[in-house]
């Protein structure tokens, strides 16, 4: 039996989040058992503007809305970063 020590996240940014991140998508490796909040902290660690934007974004884990406490699956996990909606 193999125990994964890390989990891979495939993060997709949309709209203003992509602009703040400077990329449409990134892959992040985190320790196994990390939560979405850990992912957000890692993404914004070296970028104040991105950290601010992430603070108002909604996250989808595998296409479903998920709270920041949600533990990431063993992976690879697909996470979408959605800024506040502004339709109409």
């Amino acid at each position, binding site marked *: 039996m193999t125990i994964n020590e890390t989990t891979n996240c495939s993060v997709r940014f*949309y709209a*203003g989040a992509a602009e703040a991140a400077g990329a449409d998508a990134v892959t992040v490796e985190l320790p196994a058992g990390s939560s979405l909040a850990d992912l957000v902290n890692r993404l914004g660690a070296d970028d104040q503007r991105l950290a601010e934007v992430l603070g*108002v974004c909604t996250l989808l884990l595998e296409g479903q809305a998920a709270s920041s406490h949600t533990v990431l699956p063993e992976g690879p996990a697909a996470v*979408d970063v959605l*800024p*506040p*909606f*502004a*339709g*109409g």
Partner: protein
Amino acid sequence: MTTQVVFAEVTESPLDAATLSAQVGHEAAGAVITFSGVVRNHDVGQAVDSIEYSSHPQAAAIIAQLAAETAVRDGVHGVGIAHRVGHLRVGDVALVAVVAAEHRSQGFGAVIDLVDEVKKRLPVWKKQHFTDGHTEWTGL
């Protein structure tokens, strides 16, 4: 008489409110209410030149869901909702919501709630381009 969702879409094509409205009428409906959301030439005191709208891949499914929720309201016989994405200029129509209902109060109420739900739940974003050249993502 069944309630129909006549259209529910996120599209890059221009929207014509009159054409869309005419598709939603129903013989049991005494009121057809049409709302057009139009790109305005200013926002919070700044002159707007154009707006870039984009959407999440789930937007099509979500707009269909919002239309279906409206269709089951009391007195509603027809629903249409369309959101345009892409580069829109001042005066372009970004959103059209149409409800055909038995009575006007039912129609007005349904359109107000449908547009509110679009703003809350539809994963669409806008980047405003101002006439002085700077840009801004709404909500960020």
